[in-house]
């Protein structure tokens, strides 16, 4: 007999409470197999494809594309044909053909979430208020959800949303019919919406201060030119970014506050002893920031390889949560298209971000001789709540020194001690 199974938005990652439905990969009425991807969900800048827990027919899609959905919310209903999950049937068949006509029953492999523990009047109240009980923490005996729990959840989570929804369509009061407003409304969806939120969050929470330096990278340019061939022979496309990442990690080790974040709730600075360097990548969908994990422990070519991989994944929208989380410091190419100096917004909750620009050839003095030199402008935005200007300036000049003398950061640290 067919039964309808509810598909909830699963726990997609530690600490992630909600995701945005980017795109449904199935339609209502489609047949779907267990583990087949059914929906693309976007969390903190990564999109994840959620597999179907059941085999059957997609009866209903309950979340709209563009909608924000909390973990545990029912997003779809699948009509399952069998009285048991597919996996169990396949297993039963594998083991042995049934001896009698009786249906073999096996305990379900995938255990569904426990039924919410709440009395009927509370469940009715939740229905009327539009509260999803699976998100409410019960304070009654044994975790039973009480009326008060539902009301509290409603006041804190549902009501503000409703208010916002009501306010939003009310704002553009319909103009007189003859006036044609020359505007196009483009909905902020997916990565763009997330970008908007994160930028606003970073700018409103972090008091940014900005510094910039001009770096003579003539030596670096020469070095890269020499290494390029070797890199190519190994199938690596060597840009300047791997050098900058190496220099940055080395400088960060000397200035740990720039590789940390502020735990506002506890009033503590969380200094990270790992160096996951984020690189901002512009994609058609918007800005994403995957990071190179443990960049300090990796070689130049390996970093180059990983940059290429991450950038490619980003462009194809295939970044995983793993790729984008746990970043500690970010580098962004603000001047690629042509500004002399720009100041990026910190990738919250990190404490600083480095902006890099185009390398330009211009006349400069080297050992008192005027000659053609290569220059790179770098800029730093940092969190002034716990990083002083002097500290940040010293970091930047240390970084400048490394970039001007690349051997200093390419050689092993202990060799200079």
């Amino acid at each position: 007999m067919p039964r309808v199974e509810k598909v909830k938005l699963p726990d997609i990652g530690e600490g992630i409470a909600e995701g945005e439905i980017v795109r449904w990969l199935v339609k209502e009425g489609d047949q779907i197999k267990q583990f087949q991807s059914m929906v693309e969900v976007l969390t903190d800048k990564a999109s994840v494809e959620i597999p179907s827990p059941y085999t059957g027919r997609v009866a209903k899609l309950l979340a709209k594309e563009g909608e924000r959905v909390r973990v545990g919310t029912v997003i779809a209903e699948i009509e399952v044909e069998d009285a048991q999950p597919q996996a169990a049937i396949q297993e039963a068949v594998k083991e042995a053909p049934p001896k009698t006509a009786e249906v073999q029953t096996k305990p379900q492999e995938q255990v569904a979430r426990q039924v919410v523990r709440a009395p009927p009047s509370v469940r009715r109240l939740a229905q009327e208020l539009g509260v999803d009980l699976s998100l409410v923490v019960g304070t009654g005996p044994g975790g039973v959800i009480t009326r008060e729990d539902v009301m509290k959840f409603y006041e804190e989570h549902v009501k503000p949303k409703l208010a916002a929804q009501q306010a939003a369509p009310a704002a553009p009061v319909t103009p007189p019919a003859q006036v044609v407003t020359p505007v196009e409304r483009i909905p902020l969806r997916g990565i763009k919406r997330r970008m908007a939120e994160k930028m606003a969050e970073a700018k409103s929470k972090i008091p940014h201060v900005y510094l910039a330096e001009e770096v003579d990278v003539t030596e670096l340019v020469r070095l890269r030119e020499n290494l390029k061939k070797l890199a190519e022979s190994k199938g690596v496309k060597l840009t300047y970014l791997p050098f900058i990442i190496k220099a940055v990690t080395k400088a960060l080790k000397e200035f740990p506050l720039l590789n940390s974040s502020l735990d506002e709730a506890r009033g503590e600075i969380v200094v990270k002893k790992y160096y996951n360097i984020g690189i901002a990548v512009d994609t058609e969908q918007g800005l994403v920031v995957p990071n190179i994990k443990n960049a300090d422990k990796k070689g130049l070519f390996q970093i180059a390889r990983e940059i290429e991989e991450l950038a490619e994944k980003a462009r194809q929208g295939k970044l995983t949560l793993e790729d984008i989380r746990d970043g500690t410091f970010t580098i962004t190419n603000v001047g690629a298209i042509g500004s002399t100096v720009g100041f990026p917004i910190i990738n919250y909750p990190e404490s600083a971000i480095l902006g890099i620009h185009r390398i330009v050839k211009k006349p400069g003095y080297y050992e008192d001789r005027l000659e053609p030199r290569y220059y790179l402008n770098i800029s730093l935005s940092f969190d002034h709540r716990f990083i002083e200007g002097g500290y940040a300036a010293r970091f930047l000049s240390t970084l400048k020194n490394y970039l001007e003398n690349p051997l200093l950061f390419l050689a092993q640290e202990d060799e200079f001690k």
Partner: protein
Amino acid sequence: MDSKYDLVVIGGGPGGYPGAIRASQLGLRVALVEADRLGGECTNYGCIPTKALLKPANTIWSIRSMKFVKGELDLDFNEYISWVSSIVERISGGVEMLLKGYGVDLYRGEAKLLDRNTLYVENIGEIKAEKILIATGTNPSELPLLKVDGEVIHNNRTILRIRRKPSSILIVGGGYIGVEFASLYAKIGVEVHLAEIMPNLLPGMDQDLSRAAERMLKNLGVKIRTNTTVKSIEKRQNEAHVELSSGEKLSVEKILVAVGRKPRSENLGLREVGVELDEKGYIRVDGSMRTSVENIYASGDITGPPLLAHRAFMQSLVAAENAAGKKVLYDPRAVPSVIFTEPEMAFVGMSEEEARKNGYKPKSLKMPLGGVARAVIEGGEEGFAKIIYDEDTKQLLGFVAMAPHASEIVSEATLAIEMGASIEDLSLTIHPHPTISEIFGEISELALGRPKHFLIRKRQK
């Protein structure tokens, strides 16, 4: 649209009339269409008449079983049936009175949907409706070999009309209807044969109940044949000669076919207006009791099993409230089921297997009723009670019992499950003494390892 009614309900049974009343209470203009009698299958041919039939039968049986009561008891069958009919009339009349009292317009006749907002009622004409609630219920299923003739071969409806006590009856089908009728006829002195196609009586129900039902009926003298069907039948004037699949031959005066139900969803114009049915013909609904057509709701047995009047009541109310613009769901944690044998059998909530599927760590405990004084007095000693609870949270998940008044005490378990109560809650709730409800205190304490009326013997290896 200029609709005449806000809501038209098709069907005056438990899935229909409560919704009509509720919708009217919420200010809707409501009509109800009934093709037969108000109260539906339950009031007229099911729950009500069968319980009325059982009351005198059980009373006589229990008096007879008290060996110290002297004298003969006799049953005037014709009067007995008249009394049952008068009960049915009263209850059905009560439904009509309520509907009228709430200003629900009644139309008598078969209804058919012409479009999503129009009904055609025979002999009356078209009725316009903003919203429609379909509660047409089920009909008894038939067997090709055993066509109901109302003379020798009966279903649950026609059997109520017989005015002379048969000497013998073959009941085909060992589900709860067959079991109830078997115990009824056995108690009023009819020779009862019961044939069930499956290996057990009450197929699909708790196995302890199934075994207990078999034992109980055997004690009443019912001749039970499982794994058995009717192979051929030869009808005489007042008798039927039956050959069973086992080759055994029987002669009985009546045959009662009780092999299940089928949805009454044909000829209503449902498919034509886009109402989706499942492959068995039941109407598909969502949690708000809405069908695949936005303004059409369905409730009660027409939405598929379990086919229970009390479930229909709740669904009907939910459908009506949604039709009136509220946003509510039919989402019971537990729907109780009762089989009116004696002692009664009842169950509610999850089986161990269902609990496991729902992510619990179920434990179950079965207890005999010897430690419950009232059960001993009431002759329920052969009964039992069983609880299913979560090992970690001790939350009550399911309850099964064969006990005197099990149909009443099951409600305590239902409420406990709905409230998310634990067996500790049950054990700390004072139950009046001596009552059957003390089962809850005893079994919970037993599960917690501290019973008062049971001796726990240490298991020996």
